[in-house]
């Protein structure tokens, strides 16, 4: 299987994790707005790419993986941190897509307006993110030498 989605994973998210993400996400957006208001759009714009969700998501990935291993009777501490590292690797690839999203906004927003640029930039973000992930997967698979028979 290339990519899979488990809807049941949503049930595993505890109420305090939902609340934490909502409050943290909302707070970062308010702070980004206030910074832009006080220091101007150049400084404020930097915070549009602030890693708002990454620390919380990496620690939750580790905690969930640990719990998963604990249910099977293992200590999943190392495994949890390895999975968090893989999550971080994915986020690094996602940053290239994030930069592409911003470039589309910068170049085309003054010319075409938000109704065209919002969907276009989102599509570019998704395409670049998935494209890079597939490319990286292909490179990794190609670089693995076949076992000698």
């Amino acid at each position: 299987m290339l990519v899979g989605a488990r809807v049941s994973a949503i049930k595993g998210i505890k109420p305090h994790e939902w609340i934490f993400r909502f409050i943290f996400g909302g707070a970062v957006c308010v702070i980004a707005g206030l910074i832009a208001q006080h220091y101007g759009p150049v400084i404020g714009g930097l915070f549009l790419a602030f890693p708002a969700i990454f620390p919380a998501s990496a620690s939750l990935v580790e905690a969930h993986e640990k719990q998963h291993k604990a249910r099977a009777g293992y200590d999943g501490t190392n495994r949890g941190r390895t999975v968090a590292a893989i999550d971080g690797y994915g986020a690094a690839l996602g940053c290239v897509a994030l930069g592409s999203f911003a470039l589309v906004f910068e170049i085309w927003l003054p010319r075409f307006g938000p109704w065209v640029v919002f969907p276009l930039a989102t599509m570019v973000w998704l395409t670049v993110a998935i494209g890079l992930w597939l490319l990286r997967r292909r490179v990794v698979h190609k670089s693995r030498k076949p076992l000698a028979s």
Partner: protein
Amino acid sequence: MSAELSQSLARFFIGGTIVSFFAVLAEMFRPKSFAGLFGAAPSIALATLGLTIASEGPDYAATEARSMVLGAIAFFCYAAATSWLLWRYKPPSLTATLSLMPIWFGVSFALWLAVR
């Protein structure tokens, strides 16, 4: 209610909802390298750029987007460093992600100084 306060409230609720939405996507998808892509989703930008365009106009928002490119480069450095640290030395994830946060601040402000 003042316009400033109502805009901040709108930012808070829209931002919280969009960040939570991408967090759910990150939780749902496997493998984790794919799910990680959503950790760098343009959640803050999607939440705030619409309001910025409405209140300040498209040129102001385009200027913000230009700086966002620099922020994304800084985020790349930060995420790559965090991933490497977690892979190599396996510290607790929260410790690694928070202690390396100065990388994002340092790289983004260095780039801002370089291009301004």
